């Protein structure tokens, strides 16, 4: 039982880092990025191929180095950020809102099919694998997993501190100002593209970092078992926790991840229908996304920032009322629709 909980909490911790990364792009900057999965997967791939050594005959992949784990993760993050700088430059230059999402959606599936079919890169749909032990085999199997869990918790904590700090810094406020009104922010001298671009790269870097952790956790990765739909649970987690609030995001990813794994464990999955359990789980995630968006779009711990960037203290009286202190710009305004219709 202890091992079971360690495994689940380790996963939740790793995905917490990823959720913080996605939230920087989606929550702070307001761009719903669907290609975060690609950065996560690239982080996993890069970490694995830089630590397990040369590829043996039927398996083929690039690099095949044998670097120390931490160095490999650092290089993986750098590669992911470099890669994100290309996608981000295309998608953020002058596309916003749904056009941004469409572009990132196209990007993630294009990359997915490229990796699946172009075997020399990461061994195609068979994926890469290899057992490696960052501790050098000094620990027993169980002890290793406990230490690894502690390590992941430490990383999540450090990332959380960094993100929380950044969130309240002038930079965090600038990103949100650009999100809420690009034109006004530009009038006040902010470079809209550069602001969004930097946030995007930070988010992608965090996604790559969580990929690096995940590589050490599962030690194998292939496109068939890890479809881009696998991380939709994190969009649900961010919605539950509260977009734009790092504390809420971490809370949400633990609640949703642990909650879903636990809840769906008891769904019977007969041997004849092995897909039943996972499918029901995905359906619940879809429902959760829709219901949260409809009834509580700001989440359990909504993003609330005062004008000076400090967190607004809420008294217990305002706990149940949604927008007494600051109107939430994302749920109160009805956007005027642009007039571009069917040509007559």
């Amino acid at each position, binding site marked *: 039982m202890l091992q079971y909980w360690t495994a689940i909490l380790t996963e939740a911790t790793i995905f917490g880092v990823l959720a913080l990364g996605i939230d920087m792009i989606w929550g702070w900057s*307001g761009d*719903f990025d669907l290609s975060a999965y690609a950065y996560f997967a690239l982080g996993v791939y890069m970490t694995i191929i830089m630590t397990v050594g040369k590829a043996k005959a039927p398996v083929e992949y690039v690099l095949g180095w044998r670097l120390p784990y931490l160095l490999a993760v650092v290089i993986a993050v750098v590669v992911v950020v470099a890669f994100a700088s290309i996608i981000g430059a295309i998608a953020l230059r002058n596309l*916003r*809102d749904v056009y941004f999402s469409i572009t990132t959606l196209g990007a993630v599936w*294009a990359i997915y099919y490229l990796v699946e079919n172009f075997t020399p890169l990461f061994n195609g749909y068979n994926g890469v694998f290899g057992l490696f032990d960052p501790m050098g085999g000094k620990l027993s199997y169980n002890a290793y997993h406990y230490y690894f869990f502690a390590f992941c918790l430490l990383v999540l904590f450090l990332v959380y501190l960094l993100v929380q700090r950044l969130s309240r810094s002038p930079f965090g406020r600038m990103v949100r100002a650009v999100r809420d009104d690009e034109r006004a922010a530009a009038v006040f001298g902010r470079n809209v593209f550069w602001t969004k671009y930097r946030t995007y790269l930070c988010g992608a870097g965090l996604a790559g970092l969580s990929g690096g952790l995940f590589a050490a956790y599962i030690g194998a990765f292939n496109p068939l078992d890890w479809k881009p739909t696998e991380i939709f649970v994190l969009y649900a987690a961010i919605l539950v926790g509260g977009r734009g609030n790092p504390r809420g995001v971490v809370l949400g990813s633990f609640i949703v991840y642990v909650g879903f794994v636990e809840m769906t464990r008891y769904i019977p999955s007969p041997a004849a229908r092995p897909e039943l359990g996972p499918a029901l789980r995905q*359906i619940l995630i879809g429902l959760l996304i*829709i219901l949260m*968006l409809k009834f509580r779009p700001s989440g359990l711990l909504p993003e609330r920032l005062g004008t000076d960037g400090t967190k607004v203290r809420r008294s217990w009286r305002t706990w149940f009322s949604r927008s007494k202190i600051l109107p939430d710009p994302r749920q109160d305004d009805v956007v005027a629709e642009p007039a571009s*219709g069917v040509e007559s």
Partner: protein
Amino acid sequence: MSILWISVGMGLAVAAILALSSVAFTLEYAVSRVVNLAHGEVLTIGAYAAYVGETNFHQNLYVCAIIATVAGSLTGMGLNFGLIERFRNQKPLSTLIATLGASLILQNLLLIGFGGASVSYQFAQGNLLHVGPFLWTTLTIKVMVSAVVVAGLIYLLLQRTLLGKALRAVSQNRELAQVSGIPARRVVMQTWAVAGAVSGFAGFLYGETIGTITPTIGNGFLLLSITAAVGGGLGRPYATLGGAVVLGLVMSIAGTYTSSAYQLVIAFGFLVVMLLIKPNGMFVRGRALTVRA
């Protein structure tokens, strides 16, 4: 040279199906201002409905096509009633995320209902025919002819009927159409019924052309539809038709010289080029602007 012609012929067949799917997608956008990520699942539902019609009820090709159309239409109306109208006062991005959730739900319902293994129709493919420089089967020709007929029907619907007129009005400004006495809600619902019917039919044609159906076939086709619609002009049916034909040809010609596995990669390249050069769409007059939906 002959290989090129054959691939252009195949490209036309794909383009015909793609045209239907992306026109349905663009009509949904036109009346509801929603990028419907569950569009691919409507296609898949059409394909599976026809499969049920064939294996469980032993119907022929034409009855199966009607079953697919009806199933798609019902799904479209259900999506509009249950989801899109509920999110009408929210930002387009929220609606997009909600349709992403709906896509997840529908796809997994199909997975539960039909299992993950692929199934296929048993309709006869017919003979190979040389038509000019092209090489088609009888079935491919039927697919293309029916697609052209449906596209013609959509044209007549948009230009010659009262619903078409109301649809165009609602797509330009829903509030203004409403105060002019057009029952906007009903028009939107009817548009979704039409779009769903067209998608269900397109899904059936697609399943018939590629041979196997899985719960995820709509997924890849959704991306192609989006690319065609955005490349041609989102929300504009005729521009979207043009975009679909161009994309179908580009994919099949490029696929001939690389590999058909890279179809989506090529489509994404096409999308990026279009978005960088002319984000409004290639068949829409006017300067390239920063696109905000």
